[in-house]
């Protein structure tokens, strides 16, 4: 019996090879897309799952209930961790965590490594197993360090690093550390990545902030005891908050903060570390968190494409089933039971799906390197072999084949054997189902087209919006961890002074956008001004900052060497001026420092977007305060000589600092780099939309072939009676075009809602124009019309005698 099913299935498939090839191609492209997208989604959700204590690991964060909304922050003060551990019995372990880079020396090797400052508990909490050393004691000594396998190999080669001493530059002073453990290098899907684990006591602000509850500088993780109830903990933490953050609470109260539902103005909360990878709105977490919306979009696009391909499959199977009505009738006459017919149809579906799955998997394997490169994805085909993936794939396979295989068979079964044998159902109307499925298909396609256009518009907008500073002719060069920034600035200034391409040179604490060193830093300071708390971003700059960046000065003047006092003065932006209450601010003094020293405002600059366009322009204070380091050097060059200037600046850099890598990049590259997530999303939408449309059209083409076959006689008769070719083409196409139009109308509100919400994440965004929707609908209709026209024109121009005779 089984052999007979297989044989019949194969012959039937071979007979309809054109349709089945279309089916297989469409489905395999969908399978390939799904594999790539679902693996990416799986990978993103797999972040940090390897920690065995994950369910008990939490990050501490604070929420300030400010008048203009809740403000979460993960930055914690130094004394919090020991106090929390001492005062709450359910805290099993706790560790502070901060990152920075430093130069590490061993023998004649000198490497820039990522240092992770943690407490002793860290290795007991997180699953970074030691391949050498004891996790319980490795960090017990203040000058012990644990290094990753990768770092060990690069520093020590084949030597055993245990009990060896390395030199690490802290605060530009070499300090000796003893290697007491080698940790397995963290997997790619770990939010916490490190080369070296060092005791938190060495962190740059540790000594200064030892007793300061008002300086928040680092993250705090806790491991709670088994059976801990997170829902009541915030309430239980309230006395702790009142005791230690009284000053914070008073300031918030004074500034009009409103208590939350529990009556708290400032609260400490815990968020499970399992959510870490998706905590984009927490105000700073470890690693590169990613928006869950982005990941869900990927899954949705994968699902859309799969649904579209499955719809093709069902529609084609149903359409073909009608042409096989007679066969079903004969089989029924000869005694075939319902299940026997169902299994026979299912078998054919299984074969097509199997072929598509194999082909799709191959396609995914071929496309994977490209996919990984474009979408910065870390997936691998090996991930497919995990039991959960295999079971999931198998379930999906069974569901698809059962729906696509059983459904047409059930339809055939409904017809009476007698009418089937008479061929009465051959010219049956396609029914509501096929139309419904086509509408679903084109709704999804139109939706993706709209999303593509809107994301593309937004990215163009982000890239082209004037930011208020010169981003095309200014080169930003990270000074590196090896050097003292101010010295590098001075050296470069001298060296470039006779370079004819260079207009001016300056330095700053923060970069614009994301440079090639990958880091984005920010510094916010709060102080009291006229009995109100003022919060401002701080940017440490050097002379000629405004000139180099072409930032427009509205009032006052730039920092000048002519005034010795300028090193303690500030220049503020319009937003800061507004916050300070308005006019005649130049010349006034701000009480910015705890020691009571005041700083004079010498100038006000026009607002410029010093952060990404996701955010409004916040108050900003430019200072030359030497407490902040110079981390970036900005060089403005003459227009028209960018490439030549870049090379010459690079040469100068290498001549001055032969051991430090040149990481210069143009500011427009940096600002574009900060929209990588949006670009990736847009790229995925574009690919998704193109694939969805192509697969939809394959389905539509196959359906139109079927329709033309079914209506062959009608077309012949109409032609004999005098119908023109365009009239026949219109007759055959109009039904479908109407369906596509309906699909577009259905897609409009969904697309509007999705894109409206997405755009809300940008402070600066494009307007959703009606024409975007109209264009998407028009495009979908045009593509559908062209697809159908291939067949309808062919049918319309053919000789009617042929079709009438063949009937």
């Amino acid at each position, binding site marked *: *019996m089984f052999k*007979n099913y297989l*044989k*019949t299935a194969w*012959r*039937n498939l071979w*007979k309809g090879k054109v349709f089945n090839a279309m089916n297989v191609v469409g489905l395999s492209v969908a399978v390939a897309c799904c594999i790539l997208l679902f693996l990416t989604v799986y990978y993103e959700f797999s972040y940090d799952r390897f920690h065995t204590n994950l369910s008990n690991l939490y990050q501490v964060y604070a929420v300030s209930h400010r008048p203009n909304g809740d403000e979460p922050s993960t930055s914690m003060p130094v004394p919090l961790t020991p106090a929390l551990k001492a005062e709450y019995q359910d805290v099993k372990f706790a560790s502070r965590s901060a990152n920075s880079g430093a130069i590490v020396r061993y023998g004649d090797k000198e490497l820039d490594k990522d240092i992770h400052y943690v407490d002793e508990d860290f290795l007991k909490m997180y699953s970074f197993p030691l391949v050498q050393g004891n996790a319980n004691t490795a960090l017990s000594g203040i000058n012990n360090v644990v290094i990753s396998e990768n770092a060990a190999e690069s520093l020590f080669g084949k030597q055993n690093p245990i009990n060896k001493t390395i030199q690490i530059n802290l605060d530009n002073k070499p300090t000796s550390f003893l290697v007491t453990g080698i940790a397995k290098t963290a997997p790619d899907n770990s939010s916490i990545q490190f080369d070296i684990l060092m005791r938190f006591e060495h962190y740059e602000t540790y000594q200064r902030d030892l007793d300061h509850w008002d300086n928040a500088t680092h993250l705090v993780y806790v491991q709670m005891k088994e059976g801990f109830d997170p829902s009541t903990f915030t309430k239980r933490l309230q006395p702790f908050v009142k005791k230690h953050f009284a000053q914070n609470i008073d300031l918030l109260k004074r500034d009009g903060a409103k208590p939350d539902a529990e009556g708290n103005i400032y609260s400490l909360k815990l968020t499970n570390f399992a959510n870490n990878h998706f905590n984009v709105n927490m105000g700073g977490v470890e690693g590169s968190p990613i928006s869950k919306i982005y990941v869900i979009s990927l899954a949705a696009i994968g699902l859309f494409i799969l649904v579209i391909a499955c719809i093709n499959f069902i529609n084609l199977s149903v359409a073909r089933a009608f042409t096989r009505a*007679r*066969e079903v*009738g*004969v*089989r*029924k*006459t*000869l*005694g*075939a*039971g*319902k299940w*026997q017919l169902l299994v026979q149809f299912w078998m054919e579906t299984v074969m097509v799906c199997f072929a598509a799955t194999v082909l799709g998997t191959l396609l995914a394997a071929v496309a994977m390197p490209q996919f990984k490169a474009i979408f910065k994805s870390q997936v691998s085909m090996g991930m497919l072999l995990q039991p959960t993936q295999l079971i999931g794939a198998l379930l999906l396979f069974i569901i698809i084949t059962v729906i696509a295989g059983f459904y047409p068979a059930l339809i055939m079964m409904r017809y*009476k*054997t*007698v009418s089937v*044998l008479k061929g009465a159902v051959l010219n049956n109307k396609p029914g509501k189902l096929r139309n419904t499925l086509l509408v679903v298909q084109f709704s999804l396609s139109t939706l993706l087209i709209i999303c593509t256009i809107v994301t593309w518009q937004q990215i163009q907008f982000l890239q082209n919006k004037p930011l208020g500073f010169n981003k095309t002719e200014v080169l930003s060069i990270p000074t590196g961890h090896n050097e003292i920034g101010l010295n590098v600035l001075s050296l470069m200034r001298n060296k470039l002074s006779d370079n004819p391409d260079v207009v001016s040179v300056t330095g700053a604490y923060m970069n614009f956008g994301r440079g090639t060193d990958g880091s984005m830093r920010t510094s916010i300071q709060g102080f009291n001004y006229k009995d109100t708390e003022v919060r401002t971003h701080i940017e440490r700059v050097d002379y000629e900052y405004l000139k180099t960046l072409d930032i427009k000065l509205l009032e006052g003047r730039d920092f000048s060497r002519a005034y010795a006092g300028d090193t303690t003065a500030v220049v503020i932006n319009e937003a800061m001026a507004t916050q300070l209450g308005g006019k005649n601010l130049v010349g006034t003094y701000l009480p910015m420092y705890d020691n009571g020293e005041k700083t004079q405002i010498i100038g006000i600059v026009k607002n410029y977007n010093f952060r990404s366009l996701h955010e409004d322009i916040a108050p900003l204070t430019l200072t030359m305060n030497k407490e902040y380091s110079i981390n970036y050097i900005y060089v403005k060059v003459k227009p028209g000589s960018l490439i030549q200037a870049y090379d010459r600046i690079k040469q100068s850099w290498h001549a001055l600092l032969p051991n430090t890598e040149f990481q210069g990049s143009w500011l427009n590259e940096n600002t574009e780099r900060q929209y990588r997530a949006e670009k990736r999303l847009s790229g995925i939408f574009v690919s998704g939309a193109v694939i969805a449309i192509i697969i939809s059209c394959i389905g539509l083409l196959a359906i139109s072939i079927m329709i033309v076959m079914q209506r062959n006689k009608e077309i012949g008769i109409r032609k004999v009676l005098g119908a023109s070719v365009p009239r026949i083409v219109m007759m055959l196409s109009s039904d479908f075009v109407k369906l596509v139009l309906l699909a577009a109308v259905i897609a409009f509100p969904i697309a509007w809602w999705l894109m409206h919400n997405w755009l809300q994440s940008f402070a600066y965004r494009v307007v959703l124009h009606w024409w975007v929707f109209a264009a998407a609908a028009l495009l979908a209709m045009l593509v559908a019309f062209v697809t159908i026209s291939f067949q309808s024109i062919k049918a319309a121009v053919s000789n009617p005698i042929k079709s009438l005779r063949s009937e």
Partner: protein
Amino acid sequence: MIQITNLEKFYRTEEVETVALNKLNLEIKTGEFVAIMGPSGCGKSTLLNILGLLDDPDAGSYLFNGTEVAHFNERKRADLRKHNIGFVFQSFNLIDELTVFENVELPLIYTGVSAVERKTRVEEVLTKMQIMHRRNHYPQQLSGGQQQRVAIARAVVNKPKLILADEPTGNLDSSNGNEVMELLTDLNEQGTTIIMVTHSEHDARYSHRIVRLLDGQTVMENIMM
């Protein structure tokens, strides 16, 4: 074998009700060869479909071997059909995707006969129908006469008690038609009851009895000598 009493069948559209069978009474004994004749639309095919349990009557009684089958459900009808009734159609109704051998084998598959026995029985019947040399051909590679012989082979392979033939020579030339009629006669002589719908007086002469229908009723019965 077959006893039908006051059998009625109507076809309804939204506006018109057509009477296909009008209180029809008919008895067919085991081993008979009966031809049903009449003009188009007289109810011949409807009667044959009801007799073959492919369609159900709207009223009346249908006793098959003493059992009332008029209102059997689909499963019971399919069961009765596959064990007792063979069909021969005017348009052969062979499955294009299956070879001659596989077409004939199909009813045996559905009745659950083992592969070894299937092979023996199919070869036996193909030899009998003189089509064994074409066993691996597909229907479209055969002449009309050959296709109808395959169809007859398929109808008899399960050794049914009754064969229903709907215009079995309608699509054949006279010499092929005669061959088919000879085959049916042979089968009847071996004990199979045959009911055949035909327009052809020539074919009807092969039968024992001709039932003539008009407007869904029996108008005349001729006993052939």
